[in-house]
């Protein structure tokens, strides 16, 4: 058995590598022409064989999007994006009409890609502890594992495309119920052109027996990825869901604008974990993924709970605020985040905790790490509605700086309309001290390993919230992402 109590075996294994997911796969991919018009939206809907209500949903969103402007309030410098110069649909499974039926039908190149990424698509090779995977490459889900096993418990775990076909009632009831297409520019864009993401439904009283996960892979050039994920946890259910993402190294910027919606009903609990490792661009800021994502959960039921954990190391620009609307009395929201930026990366990330119900509680722990010339911002809103008697929030935002050319910023907002609420905010900014590094060096630990060790120690509170397999990956990523920050 491998002992992962020390992150440093891992740190060592990767000490020579940089972004190891930067390869491309040569697979026959059908890519629609660049550009975005109503015809594009219709074409996507047609490709996916969608019913009319789904097309209507898209078109409404598209028409609204046309009236909107890109938001500019974040502490980010976003180069102009030409939305007409992106292809909105790329299908690496296009050879088979209905998508692959069994593992044998998946293009071996696609299989190899996920193998190389460490995401086994054959159930017998599944990660220890059992993790069901929905693997999405570009715009299409290529394989979902353990579907049958899960179906035995009444759990639905499938691609969004499949859900629209096979579970239209559930999708119609919940899609857009948490993140309306009018919510923001990127939400409207996503609602118009979204492709596969995952759909999860956990029935009443069911505790999902394994971790569910979606692995998002961008492969095709000149495309964007616009996935959409919807998770519904019915009364008294539980699920832990993981999300991972990577993309090839390219000089061009690629757009990723996703929506994740989560609905948590009475006494149910959802844990949503992300390890975001999109290609961050090179050390001069060339290339990299623009990650503009709307993630929100409606914690609707009494005593329901939603916990977001994110480790953000990738992307050239990150714009992302996983949030909780705490509607049910006694409901709870949590946000645990490690956001690391290096070189020319920019991140503006945080959360919104909207307390509507009575005795709602929220916890926010944010750990920012900035290195190189990067800019790293925490932006958070704690809102307490007038009926939210006894609401409580605790927020802690820490920033760690490596070097003196990077920036760390904190933008905490509070809007409290109920006198009984208690809202606490703590913030610290620190640097890795030369004495800490030297202490490690004197004990024989070289500089890069020492930085990895200290940064992992700093982020431990958040990393501990991740499921084991992800925690290991996250530790490794933090160390790798900081290579060449010394000297």
């Amino acid at each position, binding site marked *: 058995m491998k*002992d992962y*109590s*020390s*992150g*440093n*075996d891992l*740190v*060592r294994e990767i000490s020579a590598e940089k972004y190891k997911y930067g390869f491309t796969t040569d697979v026959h991919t059908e890519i629609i022409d660049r550009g975005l018009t109503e015809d594009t939206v219709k074409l996507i809907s047609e490709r996916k064989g969608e019913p009319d209500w789904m097309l209507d949903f898209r078109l409404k969103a598209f028409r609204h999007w046309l009236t909107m402007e890109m938001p500019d309030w974040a502490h980010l410098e976003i180069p102009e994006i030409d939305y007409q110069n992106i292809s909105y649909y790329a299908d690496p499974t296009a050879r088979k009409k209905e998508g692959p039926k069994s593992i044998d039908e998946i293009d071996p190149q696609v299989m190899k890609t996920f193998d190389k990424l460490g995401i086994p698509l054959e159930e017998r090779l599944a990660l220890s502890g059992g993790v069901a995977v929905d693997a999405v490459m570009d715009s299409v889900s290529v394989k979902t594992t353990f579907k049958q096993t899960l179906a035995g418990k009444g759990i639905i775990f499938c691609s969004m495309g499949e859900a629209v076909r096979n579970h239209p009632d559930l999708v119609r009831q919940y899609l857009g119920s948490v993140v309306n297409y009018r919510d923001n520019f990127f939400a409207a864009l996503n609602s118009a052109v979204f492709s596969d993401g995952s759909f999860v439904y956990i029935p009443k009283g069911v505790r999902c027996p394994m971790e569910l996960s979606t692995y998002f892979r961008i492969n095709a050039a000149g495309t964007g990825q616009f996935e959409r994920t919807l998770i519904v946890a019915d009364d008294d259910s539980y699920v832990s869901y993981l999300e991972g993402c990577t993309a090839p190294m390219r000089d061009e910027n690629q757009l990723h604008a996703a929506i994740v919606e989560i609905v948590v009903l009475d006494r149910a609990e959802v844990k949503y974990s992300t390890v975001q490792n999109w290609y961050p661009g090179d050390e001069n800021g060339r290339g990299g993924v623009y990650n503009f994502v709307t993630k929100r959960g409606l914690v609707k039921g009494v005593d329901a709970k939603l916990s977001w954990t994110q480790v953000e190391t990738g992307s050239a620009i990150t714009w992302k605020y996983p949030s909780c609307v705490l509607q049910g009395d006694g409901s709870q929201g949590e946000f645990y985040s490690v956001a690391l930026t290096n070189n020319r990366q920019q991140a503006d990330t945080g959360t919104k905790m909207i307390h509507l119900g009575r005795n709602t509680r929220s916890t926010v722990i944010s750990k920012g790490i900035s290195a190189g010339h990067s800019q790293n911002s925490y932006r958070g809103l704690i809102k307490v509605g007038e009926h939210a008697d006894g609401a409580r929030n605790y927020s802690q935002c820490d920033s760690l700086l490596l070097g003196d050319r990077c920036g760390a910023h904190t933008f905490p907002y509070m809007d409290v309309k109920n006198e009984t609420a208690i809202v606490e905010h703590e913030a610290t900014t620190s640097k890795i*001290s*030369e*004495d*800490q590094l*030297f*202490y*490690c*060096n*004197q*004990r*024989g*630990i*070289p*500089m890069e*390993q020492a930085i990895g*060790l*200290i940064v*992992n*120690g*700093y*982020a*431990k*509170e958040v990393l501990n919230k991740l499921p084991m397999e992800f925690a290991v990956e996250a530790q490794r990523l933090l160390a790798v992402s900081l290579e060449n920050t010394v000297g």
Partner: protein
Amino acid sequence: MIMMLKIENLHAGIDGKEILKGIDLEVNAGEVHAIMGPNGSGKSTMSNVLVGHPAYSVTEGKVTFKGKDLLAMSAEERSHEGLFMSFQYPVEIPGVSMTNFMRTAINEKRKALGKTPLSPADFLKMVREKRDLVKLDAKFMNRSVNEGFSGGEKKRNEIFQMAMLEPSLSILDETDSGLDIDALRIVADGVNRLKNADTSVIVITHYQRLLDYIKPDVVHVLYHGRIIKTAGPELALELEERGYDWVIREFEDSVG
């Protein structure tokens, strides 16, 4: 006699200010040397320069450690070669458990020596053994490095790390400072039990009291960046009784 450390005409300083002004020192395997001196004499500079602290720069001289050019090595390479320093002020590293820290340190050294990493079982066995040496309880391995440790625990932890890393030459930098008599005994006892014919110790101290427990073979007096007197263990006692002034006067008379 096997030469452990040879310092020749070492000049070094910090922020452009020269503090060591020509140190000569030879330490053989199996020997314990004490370096004593009043405040500001350069004791801490000397230990920091030997272990390669980046804030200090060497301007002249040569240091040979086990036959190799010490000054050409990075701090971690010196450690891998078997040089250890017990810090006067051990630093806290939040969130990094002692287990994680120690395993990393040991396995980095093993890697440098071309050995495979220590198995978790062997590592834990070693921890148990060495922990007893300085009477640290089992829980301390789960605590973050030095975080919230008492002064005594920090120094015992330094000696524990020394035991784990099995260095050839250990520099104890003011290890007695801030220790009560019980902790001092535990620390000294640990050092004595680690001592053998192949290892050497340099004890850097202002006071004699640690030398009651760790018996030196040679005592040096450092003053204004130079070693001004070298003698046997009886010198430490004399310094305790008479202070440093007489040695300084003797030195100043001799240089005229």
